[in-house]
């Protein structure tokens, strides 16, 4: 089975994240990049499926040069090879552009299964997997907390507000995974060393047949009008519990008409 796992480098959520004042995009230079947490579950799931069914795991990441750190981590976990979609023309791409560029790259790579995290911790749109399924014309098996493959059949448990749905389809398919679907492995020393020798192919937009007028900030379908730091919340009242903390909290709730 030919599995492509999509990973994104995102700013470490422990650092202060900012928008750039010039083009209102995320300032990626100012912060440390880490692997998007939910994508680690995607990599783990891809590796488990490969271990069970054979095949190959290819990492696909779109992002600036720095994203190679993230690619190396996925390779160190055990993926076989990687494709880094990187081009200055992609800077500022919104979800529509990103899904278009990723879909073009996926068509070029070829796949039986595409796996990605259900959302990124930076933009948090949660739309990419659905958009990829739409663009690739493949079944959408998203928000999975369980994935089973049997020959060309695939079944997932899709998390819903009321519990979950059992969903079935035929490969090729696009799968997104949620937290806790598995326990992502830590790269071993051997894995880290091996990752340095694994092939990473860099694709520019022309290499992946991506039209320049469909990507980047100028092509974006939506735009930031303006932004500002959220005003700090007004300092609240903090009391020490002297045996009456619950009663005092109740008084506060009553003063706000919650009770």
């Amino acid at each position, binding site marked *: 089975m030919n599995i492509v796992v999509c990973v994104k480098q995102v700013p470490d*959520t422990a650092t202060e*994240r900012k*928008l750039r004042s010039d083009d209102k995009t995320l300032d990626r230079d100012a912060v440390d990049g880490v692997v998007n*947490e*939910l994508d680690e579950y995607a990599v783990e799931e891809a590796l488990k499926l490969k271990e069970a069914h054979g095949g190959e795991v290819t990492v696909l990441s779109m992002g600036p040069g720095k994203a190679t750190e993230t690619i190396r981590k996925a390779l160190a976990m055990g993926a076989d090879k990687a494709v880094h979609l990187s081009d200055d023309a992609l800077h500022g791409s*919104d*979800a529509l552009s990103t899904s278009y560029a990723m879909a073009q790259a996926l068509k070029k790579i070829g796949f039986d299964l595409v796996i990605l995290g*259900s959302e990124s911790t930076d933009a*948090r*749109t*949660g*739309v*990419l997997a*659905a*958009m990829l*399924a*739409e663009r690739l014309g493949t*079944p*959408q098996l*998203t*928000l999975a907390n369980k994935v089973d493959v049997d020959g060309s059949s695939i*079944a997932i448990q*899709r*998390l*819903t*507000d*009321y*519990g979950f*749905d*059992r*969903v*079935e*389809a035929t490969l090729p*398919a696009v799968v997104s995974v949620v937290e806790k679907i598995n326990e992502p492995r830590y790269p071993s020393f051997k894995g880290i060393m091996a990752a340095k020798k694994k092939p990473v192919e860099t694709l520019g937009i022309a290499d992946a047949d991506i039209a320049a007028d469909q990507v980047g900030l100028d092509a*974006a*379908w*939506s*735009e*930031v*009008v303006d*932004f500002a*730091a*959220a005003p700090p*919340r*007004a300092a*609240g*009242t*903090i009391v*020490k*519990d002297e045996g009456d*903390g*619950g009663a005092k*909290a*109740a008084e*506060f*709730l*009553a003063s*706000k008409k*919650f*009770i």
Partner: protein
Amino acid sequence: MSEILVLVEQLDGEVKKVTLELLTLARGLGTPAAVWAGPGLTDGAKAKLAEYGAEKIYVASSADVVDHVVAPKAELLAQLVADKSPAAVLVAATAEGKEVAGRLAVKTDSGVITDAVGLGEGFVADQSIFGGGVNVRSRVRKGTPIVAVRPNSTAPEPAAGAGAEEEVSLTLSEAAKAARVVERVKQEKGARPELTEAAIVVSGGRGVGSAENFSVIEGLADALGAAVGASRAATDAGWYPHQFQVGQTGKTVSPQLYIAAGISGAIQHRAGMQTAKTIVAINKDPEAPIFELADYGVVGDLHQVVPQLTEEVTKRK
């Protein structure tokens, strides 16, 4: 005024509160038209949608619409966008709502904005990003604006609409039927409101100490008619099911009142609750960052404070 399509969220024929909020928002910007995807539109649901201002209710009643993942709903909305030329399409910013919005954006070559917490003239949307640290105003600049709006972004207000039902004849593509829902498993949720929709959320964290002790959190939640949430520390420890996790990698909630008990308030958690209108924190550690957000904080042991609060709430009812 132009129509604004509102995709209805419902469970077992009951219209969810977020849909009433979207109809309320839509009324300020155009003429709301509700879109009911799938079978099960009851007279009660119709009356509810009309009560909150739906002039029309478009219905695609085939079971095929809900028996396949997301794609049919996007096809239904795309057809309505083509036929009715609405000014905008609003969906709830639930995980599935955002997926519908994403596919619809691709189909109609339109921009999409997710997780709006407000929507104004020209469909300029307010968003709160980076864990609540930055407020952004965004707008769609190509196609029909598609906006996924978070629950609790506005208070639902009734204002009667005609609620005229119109069946939509929809022929789904084969591609839209590729992912088949073969079984729906409804987990027992009891009488509590849904986490993302609830007006009040009571969450427990590391300080709760064990799975059994979550009954303290549940007790307060039930006294307030609230939903129960949990921090990642609590779900990682297996004390509470993962689907109730509030935070960066869990659910984002925006309730009127958020009570955090035994939660320190790491960024992981704050990202999921910082837009709550009023925040109350109960924690043993006076230095816990959650107190920086709190409108009211009690420094103390939640095992003493929460049961007392529950008792007071019950007394005052």
